[in-house]
């Protein structure tokens, strides 16, 4: 089991998606809106049309400075004023792709300014300068479970007294590099995703996303009561066929929820095999608990998805209503998949999960403090 040493609180949490902040995105998901729309997979260079969800007005092609930077600054402008990046107030940053789209742009245009944002450290430094952060930055990159690692590390820093508060920030913005890569894997195709739906062919969509959370010991109305990790190391892109990896990451969280009423926010990208394994493992670990996922609308926001969807789950807990699995209809892999919005008022908390390349799994339990 991998869990934070003690429960920590979230004193703030919000996200940025193509549908807006957490409040606007939550409301749009309740209405069943999809941010995904067809775009050429290589942006200005063309290619097949694939479902992408881009920030309003942003093209897939990279710019310098990055076109998403002002939106990130606005998002982080809501964070309480602290000496972020100082020893007692570290920032835990996570992403899967950072500014790698800038390296694609550099390779294809020769524009030297793109390199300044291309590496993980350069991309994070760009954001840190824009936000006035100090150098105490922990930067995590573990594909689509990246945000969970940053949250767990921040929780441990705060719990151990190594930090007074920790800011967790996660971001991933699409580029031809990323879209082209997933298209090459043949899971990003012309179809819109339908997470957890039993259909002939699977598909995913990709989306822009960023989010933050402030982790504290005692301030905030929501608590992270358990966090769990597991890495199958079975195959780069496939899971163990018996679903053992999903079961392993859920077991510690299920133990922490014994006797409580949960709802579940799964990873649910729209791929068939992983979706089936995940839905079945969730149903076994949390019998009867409704399962939802939002990548059918927002697309997969990659390294940021764990934090983006945590902000939306927090909104659902506070408002008493969770969006259903947008884009999905019967038949579903299990009868617990929620295809319509549902009330969360009778639940004690939500279990949120993410999965990644390499059979990496992460899960957390968010509950009212």
């Amino acid at each position: 089991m991998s869990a934070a040493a003690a429960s920590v609180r979230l004193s703030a949490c919000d996200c940025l998606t193509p549908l807006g902040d957490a409040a606007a995105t939550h409301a749009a998901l309740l209405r069943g809106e999809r941010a995904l729309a067809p775009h050429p997979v290589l942006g200005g260079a063309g290619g097949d049309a694939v479902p992408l969800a881009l920030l309003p007005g942003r093209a897939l092609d990279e710019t310098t400075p990055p076109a998403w930077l002002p939106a990130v600054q606005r998002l982080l402008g809501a964070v309480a004023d602290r000496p972020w990046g100082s020893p007692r107030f570290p920032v835990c940053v996570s992403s899967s792709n950072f500014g790698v789209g800038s390296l694609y742009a550099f390779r294809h245009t020769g524009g030297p300014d793109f390199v300044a944002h291309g590496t993980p450290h350069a991309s994070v430094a760009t954001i840190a300068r824009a936000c006035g952060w100090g150098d105490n930055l922990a930067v995590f990159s573990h594909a689509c479970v990246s945000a969970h690692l940053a949250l767990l590390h921040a929780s441990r820093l705060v719990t151990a007294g190594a930090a007074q508060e920790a800011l967790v920030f996660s971001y991933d913005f699409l580029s031809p590099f990323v879209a082209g890569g997933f298209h090459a894997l043949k899971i990003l195709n012309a179809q819109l995703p339908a997470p957890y739906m039993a259909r002939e062919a699977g598909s995913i969509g990709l989306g822009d996303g960023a989010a933050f959370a402030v982790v504290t010991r005692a301030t905030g109305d929501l608590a992270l009561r358990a966090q769990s990790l597991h890495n199958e190391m079975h195959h780069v892109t496939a899971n163990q066929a018996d679903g053992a990896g999903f079961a392993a990451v859920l077991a510690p969280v299920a133990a922490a929820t014994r006797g409580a009423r949960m709802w579940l926010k799964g990873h649910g990208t729209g791929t068939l095999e992983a979706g089936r394994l995940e839905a079945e493992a969730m149903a076994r670990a949390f019998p009867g608990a409704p399962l939802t996922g939002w990548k059918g609308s927002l697309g997969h926001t990659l390294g940021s998805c764990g934090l983006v969807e945590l902000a939306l789950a927090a909104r659902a807990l506070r408002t008493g209503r969770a969006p259903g699995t947008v884009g999905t209809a019967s038949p579903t892999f299990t009868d617990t998949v929620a295809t319509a919005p549902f009330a969360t008022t009778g639940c004690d908390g939500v279990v949120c999960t993410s999965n990644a390349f390499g059979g990496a799994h992460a899960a957390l339990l968010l509950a009212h403090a």
Partner: protein
Amino acid sequence: MLERAITSVRTIDPGSEEPPATRARLKDAFPAGAARRMTQLGMLVGAALDAVGPQPGDAIVYASRFGEGRALETFLESFPTPSPTLFQTSIHPSGVQQGLIARQRATTEVFPIAGSPAMVAQALLAALLTPTPRAIFCGGEERGTWLTAHGAASERTFAFALVLSSAGGVADGCGRLALEPGDVQGELTLESWFDLLHSRRPFAGAIAPGWRLTLHWS
């Protein structure tokens, strides 16, 4: 103060060795067929990990500022028909996953850390704060080609792995490290950290704002 014993350590400095030479040298260390698809960094980190003897239940903290520089370069060159294999291997933390997947070595906690000025300090913090009795801190870089000229890939190739244990004695050639907060300023790069390990040099000083490292060798 956070403190652990270093109970095993392995460093690999292949100098200017090119990836094909590394592959030829290390291919027998991995299951048949695996080395063909592995990057230079993947093979070196995998070999360093093997040498320190990972155990079930170990937490793994992996640090690389640039990651798979060569795979990234070749993937970028593969457009407009991008290679799915290179896409997978160019993504952080492929360098540590390749060896673990080749060995089918399931692991509970893997904390891959990318570049920042406080990279070594944060990696050590991640390792020292894990609740497991043992944490393995590993990492490295692989020298790039055209991206290196633009500061977007490493100039050096190296790999390391060390076991940090909360209990037990210290074997010959190993030591102890401690991380303590303080009103200090400093920075320790991953390359400098590797050099400390490789030469078994002691160290006492600031490695990030607010964090001081003490490293002793027996």
